[in-house]
């Protein structure tokens, strides 16, 4: 391997000097926290993931100093700690914004509009994936499935849920974040900074008043089945049934003879709406709008 002397990025084999330690007061504070975390586990190394969250809560990303701190407290080498910290996506390797905005672009959210939201946010903020706005407020990321598919498309800010987003709502969200206006997740607590979030992840409960109970018991989609079981109706629940049964339920008051689920024929825009329903397509009789037993 050869390296050109003009490129300062290429290492010529000089080992890096050991990372500097934290200032004494910071070190003392973090050490007390770290010992509390380590005491929760039968084997000290189990505390490594929480400790990496802890050093991230101090500096906003995992620095060489943070890695050295974890290694010293757990009796590991910095190489061992680095190997772990680079495996997990939640550990940042460079300074980032106060608010991490993650747009789910795994298949279901992407199809439901996550791709469009991510594209519009990139353009709106003028940043790419894993880049931070110049004011240091927002880091934009695409994320993987966050276990909220019944609320698709989903955006996470500092790992609080912002459900059922649109490009417009997402742009408003990042504008509010950058302007310092309060934003409210649909499920989760009022936002704290990324560093504060990392401290909760390290295992230190959120002590803010009202944080645990914020946004109530469960989101609307989580309650869909329970409401049906209690005899309540869901929105659109009766006029788009899959297979209406004779006399079981009134289908709806639709005046025309249109099939359940079919778009109203008189709507001005319906000429370009998808119309290929099973009611209009005898080649797909098993579709959900088909009559039972066809």
């Amino acid at each position, binding site marked *: 391997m050869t390296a050109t002397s003009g490129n300062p990025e290429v290492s010529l084999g000089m080992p890096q000097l050991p990372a500097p330690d934290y200032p004494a007061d910071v070190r003392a504070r973090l050490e007390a926290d770290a010992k509390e975390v380590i005491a929760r586990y039968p*084997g000290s190394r189990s505390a*490594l*993931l929480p400790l990496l*969250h802890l050093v991230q809560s101090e500096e906003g990303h995992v620095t060489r100093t943070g890695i050295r701190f974890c290694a010293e407290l757990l009796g590991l080498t910095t190489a061992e700690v680095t*190997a772990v910290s680079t495996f*997990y996506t*939640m550990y940042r390797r460079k300074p980032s914004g106060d608010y991490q905005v*993650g747009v789910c672009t795994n298949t*279901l959210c*992407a*199809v*439901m*509009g996550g791709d*469009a939201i991510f594209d519009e946010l990139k353009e709106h903020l003028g940043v790419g994936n894993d880049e931070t706005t110049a004011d240091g407020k927002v880091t934009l990321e695409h*994320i*993987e*499935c966050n*276990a*909220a*598919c*019944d609320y*698709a*498309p989903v955006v996470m800010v500092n*790992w609080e849920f912002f459900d059922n987003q*649109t490009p417009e709502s997402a742009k408003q969200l990042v504008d509010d974040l950058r302007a310092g206006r309060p934003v409210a997740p649909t*499920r989760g*607590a009022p936002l704290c900074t990324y560093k504060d979030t990392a401290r909760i*992840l390290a295992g230190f*409960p959120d002590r803010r008043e009202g944080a*645990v109970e914020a946004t109530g*018991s*469960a*989101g*609307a*989609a*989580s*309650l*869909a*089945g*329970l409401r*049906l*079981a209690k005899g309540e109706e*869901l*929105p*659109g629940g009766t006029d*788009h049934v*899959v297979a209406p049964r004779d006399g*079981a339920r009134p289908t709806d008051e639709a005046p025309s003879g249109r099939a359940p*689920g079919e*778009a*109203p024929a008189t709507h001005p*825009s319906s000429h370009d*709406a998808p119309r290929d*329903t*099973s009611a209009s397509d005898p080649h*797909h009789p098993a*579709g*959900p*709008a088909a009559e039972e*037993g066809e």
Partner: protein
Amino acid sequence: MTLSTEYGGHSQPEAGGETSPEKLLTPVLSAFWDQPNSWTLETYRRHEGYEGARKALAMAPDDVIAYVKDAGLRGRGGAGFPTGMKWQFIPQGDGKPHYLVVNADESEPGTCKDIPLLFANPHALIEGIVIACHAIRSEHAFIYLRGETVPVLRRLHEAVREAYAAGYLGKNVMGSGLDLELTVHAGAGAYICGEETALLDSLEGRRGQPRLRPPFPAVAGLYACPTVVNNVESIASVPAIMNRGKEWFRSMGSEKSPGFTLYSLSGHVTNPGQYEAPLGITLRQLLDMSGGIRPGHRLKFWTPGGSSTPMFTDEHLDVPLDYEGVGAAGSMLGTKALQCFDETTCVVRAVTRWTEFYAHESCGKCTPCREGTYWLVQLLRDIEAGKGRMADLDKLNDIADNINGKSFCALGDGAASPIFSSLKYFRAEYEQHVTGKGCPFDPAKSTAWADKHLEVNA
């Protein structure tokens, strides 16, 4: 892979009048999620909370194991292994500490049941942990929660604090003599840690990479000690079984798949959400009661249990969603994540995105998965962009075949599933991308807001 079509194309007869949602749904874990402060100990106690633990702690540990085994509870995390049998594998009198590790690393694409469960009702899990630890004689349990769900972490922290304060955790639990520590552990972003041995490595402070088995975790798990790893929903289902009886549990579902479970409906449906029902309900029944596919559209393809389970089409609407029924139809029940896609969705786009996910999340330990997923992504991106060749379709199948069953863990198998199943049902659509030199679909039509102008007047 062969696939039975015995359920295809016709509806199963149903007894008249038994099809109303009130009769088909059985909210147990979700029964009081609509109550104010549903996550608190006070609300949980008002709904017979910790009564199952009281009964279990009065029984001998082996009797609890036998009871759960007799109830027929099977794992809700994907594989469907009988929970009681897993507990029974823990060697007794071996002098080593035993551990219970709850897998709350819910990350399988489409899966969204454990997170809402823990958000609304964390004490069901904690009570289940008390019972399970008594049964397997463990004094230390862990909840490995995926890190990206901070709202749930907050409520778990609070619920564990409440449980310690009320004597359901700590020394001499409920006066039974059981000492039990419970540690809530937040992960750091890695799908692979949902695999039980990778989870154990991660919990030991290492990169989350699967271990070769044997030895199985029941013999050498966490810190090389006997360990049970169970899914959240499996453990949270145990208190109701102990409290209301195994006969009650067996009165739901089928002989081999008894009980209730959470079905997660998502995608192009009128009412996505959680639907708790007996095992064996069909997607047709769930759609029927919940408003169906979004207005003006029809179902194209769906997953019975997350992206790693081979996809189904509208032929499979009447497949009973239990372990046997879905298996007989050529897929797996998995996590019961019913992701529904309508006719506006491009299969090639969907599969490409899932495959990118598997390539990103492959831990790199096994060559077939690490290299195979990479090459699948290259081929799929080309096909989606209209730069593919017909021979690429066979090559996709070939690479998937070289991943499937040839890695330590099921991530590789999961990556092969969407490839095999989509080529089986939608090969013509792949060919269309090749011959038409591009994707024939308009992604704007698939979005949640595509038909909003219709709904206003609908």
